């Protein structure tokens, strides 16, 4: 009686092994890591912009984040898995724990400081993988989660010390990454404005543009994709469909404005799309397993990326779209598994996807406009007044968040003063602390080469352009006066109607407030305010003010200055107070004017 080994399952097995797949992935990443080191470390060092430490920084960067994730998983293994008798040292290797760290190191800005990097890597491993149950159970791509955490929490801090720009780029380029540059012009621009500041499209293709540590080189990503598809390691349908969708949609957008084929190429080569499509979207654990599911995944990823790039002010299109679609993977898999038997069942999602692609493509194209040739579209002259040799300009220039409005006074053709009237820039404090305005006045003759304030690049560029455009206008148009085209300096307070009958005077007034213009009816009786009725109030928190019986307070107050604002609706209550004050002023000033 012989006893043989008995086991279930097939008795021959393929050569596929998870370790081999990961090995191929590593090989595909090596050129990218080398290029990242070259572009961010070696080149600045050779140019003299960086120290020796700066040269090895990219490698150190990637190495530290990889090591952190490895150690965190090792700790997890020791704490939780030891009693299962598994070989502890093998555990972090078996679960490919270093991959989130490796990817994270490649997608963060180079100027991230090490403590933040380590915290981000720990976050990525713990909240991105371990909390869900470890390898194979996570829903979200851990590297992307880590990057989201770092950018959301420390984005400002990193931006202060240079953001995505490595030492060489800080000097050479005036704005930040290509997509931030594009967002200044609403995403639509000419070849000159979008591409040329960074070179030609070949720069985009090979990756010598500003961006995160390792995600700029589209060429290397394509090579990696071909290698990995050939080795049957990744789900190739996803990146192909994703990139093609983005290409098609941006082609529609560009076509609306008769931009050439360079426009969709620009869009797919920038923003780390290639890297995200090949490495992040195809992460096996967090992407669909069925073929139809994968195609739908790619389609919707493309749609979401285009939506996030054009319709939201956030620059992180690829990251948010992948993380969002990660939530829907299990639905896509359900659709995909049913579609395996009966393709018709999946027609509806495809239809939805195609409608969105075509619809959004055309709509975004039509709603974003192309700047006019030759002029700076973000610069407008509101008014220009001449008084002898003094010319006073009121101009606006689009900044990072919104328009910057300033008064520039020229005397004898030279700028004497610049006064910024209104702005809503996030980092304006840096401009102020750098005395940038004064520097602009000092350097007005060679502003083109003048540096921007690091950490407030876009704002300082806008200010520079504003001054340059003003000087240009003076040189071209001389002392031609320009009347403000619209009543742009709208009065905050306006009396629309005023009617008196006997001792009662009724005012209809408008007051600029938080959300727009508030319109109210104020009635005076025998010299005193008897009632205030709000006719039109576009403010968000007006109900808070109304509930606080604020109007009653205003009516009964002897001195309006004593009346406190309503907390939670300060601007609105302040505006209403102003409105009453101005009305009283008018009333007391000219009681018999109509």
């Amino acid at each position, binding site marked *: 009686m012989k006893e043989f080994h008995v086991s279930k399952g097939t008795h021959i097995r393929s050569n596929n092994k998870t370790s081999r797949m990961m090995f191929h992935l590593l090989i595909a990443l090596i050129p990218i890591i080398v290029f990242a080191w070259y572009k961010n470390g070696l080149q600045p060092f050779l140019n003299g912009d960086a120290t020796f430490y700066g040269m090895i920084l990219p490698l150190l960067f990637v190495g530290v984040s990889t090591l952190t994730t490895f150690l965190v998983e090792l700790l997890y293994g020791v704490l939780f898995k030891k009693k299962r008798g598994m070989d502890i040292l093998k555990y972090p290797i078996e679960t490919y724990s270093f991959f989130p760290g490796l990817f994270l190191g490649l997608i963060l800005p180079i100027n991230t400081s090490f403590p933040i990097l380590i915290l981000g890597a720990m976050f990525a491993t713990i909240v991105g993988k371990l909390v869900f149950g470890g390898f194979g159970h996570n829903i979200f791509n851990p590297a992307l989660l880590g990057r989201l955490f770092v950018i959301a929490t420390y984005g400002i801090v990193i931006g202060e010390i240079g953001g995505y720009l490595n030492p060489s780029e800080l000097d050479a380029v005036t704005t930040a990454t290509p997509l931030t540059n594009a967002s200044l012009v609403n995403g639509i621009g000419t070849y000159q404005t979008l591409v040329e500041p960074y070179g030609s499209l070949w720069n985009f293709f090979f990756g010598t543009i500003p961006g995160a540590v390792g995600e700029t080189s589209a060429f290397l990503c394509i090579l990696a994709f071909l290698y990995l598809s050939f080795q049957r390691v990744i789900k190739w349908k996803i990146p192909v469909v994703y990139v093609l969708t983005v290409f098609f949609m941006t082609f529609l957008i560009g076509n609306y404005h008769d931009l050439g084929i360079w426009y969709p190429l620009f869009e797919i080569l920038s923003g780390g799309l290639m890297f995200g499509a090949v490495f992040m979207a195809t992460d*096996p654990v967090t992407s669909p397993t069925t073929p139809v599911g994968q195609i739908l995944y790619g389609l919707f990823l493309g749609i979401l990326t285009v939506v996030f790039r054009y319709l939201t002010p956030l620059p992180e299109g690829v990251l948010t779209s992948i993380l969002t679609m990660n939530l829907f993977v299990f639905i896509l898999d359900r659709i995909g598994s049913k579609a395996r038997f009966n393709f018709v069942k999946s027609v509806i999602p495809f239809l939805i996807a195609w409608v969105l692609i075509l619809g959004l493509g055309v709509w975004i194209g039509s709603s974003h406009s192309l700047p006019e040739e030759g002029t700076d579209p973000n610069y407008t002259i509101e008014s220009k007044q001449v008084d002898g040799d003094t010319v006073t300009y009121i101009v606006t220039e689009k900044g990072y968040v919104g328009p910057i409005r300033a008064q520039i006074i020229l005397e004898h053709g030279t700028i004497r003063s610049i006064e910024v009237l209104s702005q809503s820039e996030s980092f304006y404090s840096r401009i102020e602390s750098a005395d940038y305005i004064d520097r602009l006045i000092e350097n007005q003759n060679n502003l083109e080469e003048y540096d921007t304030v690091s950490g407030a690049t876009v704002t300082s560029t806008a200010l520079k352009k504003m001054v340059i455009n003003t000087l240009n206008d003076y040189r071209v148009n001389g002392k031609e006066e320009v009347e403000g085209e619209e009543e742009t300096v709208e009065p905050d307070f306006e009396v629309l109607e005023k009617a008196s009958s006997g001792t009662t005077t009724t005012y209809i007034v408008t007051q600029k407030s938080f959300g727009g213009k508030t319109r109210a009816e104020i009635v005076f009786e025998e010299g005193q305010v008897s009632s205030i009725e709000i006719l039109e109030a576009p403010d968000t928190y007006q109900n808070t003010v109304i509930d606080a019986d604020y109007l009653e307070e205003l009516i009964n107050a002897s001195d309006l200055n004593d009346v406190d604002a309503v907390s939670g609706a300060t601007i609105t209550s302040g505006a209403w107070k102003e409105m009453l004050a101005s009305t009283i002023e008018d009333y007391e000033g000219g009681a018999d004017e109509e």
Partner: protein
Amino acid sequence: MMIGIKIPGMKKLTNTKKNGIYNKPKYVYIPLISQNDTNITIIAKKGDYVYKGSVIGKRKGNLRIPIHSSVSGTVVGFEERPYLNGSIVKCVKIENDFKEKEEVKKESHKTLNHYTKKQFINLIKECGIVGLGGAGFPTYVKYDTDKPIKTLLINAVECEPYITADYALMMEKCEEILEAIDAILEICHIDEGIIAVKKNNTSLIKLINSFIGTYLKIKLVEVPNQYPMGWERNLIKQVKHVTYQNLPIEKGIVVNNVSTIYAIYEALKYERPLTERVVTFTGEMLKEPKNVLVKLGTPAHEVIESLGGYKRNKNIRFVAGGPMMGVAEPNDDLIVTSNLNCVLVLKEGKESLPSECLRCGKCVSVCPAKLSPVLIKDYLKKPERLKELEPNRCIECGLCTYICPSKILVREFVKEAKKKSREG
């Protein structure tokens, strides 16, 4: 469209050797089982003398197929022996008197087509002919229908690696098989006969082509070298480009394994019941792997010993059936039955433990039945969701376990899902 993948054939071990014969077993153990149904009326009793081909049992129920003795001799008793699906089955133990006596001397017919359809069906029923491709389905049922049969599809694909039993049989008995096909076509009024062979089986294709010219109604069709091309649905889709719901007869097609056709030949010519078949004994651990003509009921270890035995006596994995769908047996007491087409003796390597599912989707992309095994594994705890994944379509071909990079036994999960969805 790819309906399978290419996996290593491993046929070279046995397909160049001449077939062996082992027909002198001391005892035969005829299992009282037909197609996993052990409800058999036992006709022979202990001490009875039985002839070669006498009926010793009959299956109860609708498919009343008889079970024959493969040798002449005395019924010694009943014993339990391992069967190829891993279970232990009660068998009739007959002591061989080596005389090969038959009950009634039957003349051999010159032509094969002088039967009516009814006679034909009765004949193959009484001869106990079942599907020799591994299913063991009583063949006569397939012909016993009022629907018109338009095509007879002969499955000579043999897609599972290592197995060359059908190939060996065809190489020796090609003319006879063609004659039988022709006869069946005439008897049952079938319009055409198609023999399906793998593309790379060049010597077999040459052989068939040299004879097939005389038979106008029989065609030879080459199919791609993929597994599981021999699966009925795949084959019909590939050759006739049609799909069917439950049975091929819906589209007027009857599929038979080529070894079954040879058994029908013997029945038509000599009116002999099914008593022997060619089995491939192969694998790296056998000293002399080859195809052997074996009497049904022979214990496997006897045949192996006649071939020279094992190369080594340890680290052996003994598989009844092919490498993909066969069952590993704990010992070599297995008996040869009509649905055993291969005995595979492999070296037991170090089997790696399964690790976490990577969700790579490879199992989904290779499944010929278009299932999503990874999702079935996830939803095992939620039976309500399991139904829409249709695990009952699974044919247990084993490709999902074959291809899994994490070495997970995927097929076992799907089998469990099948059981669960049938219960609840």
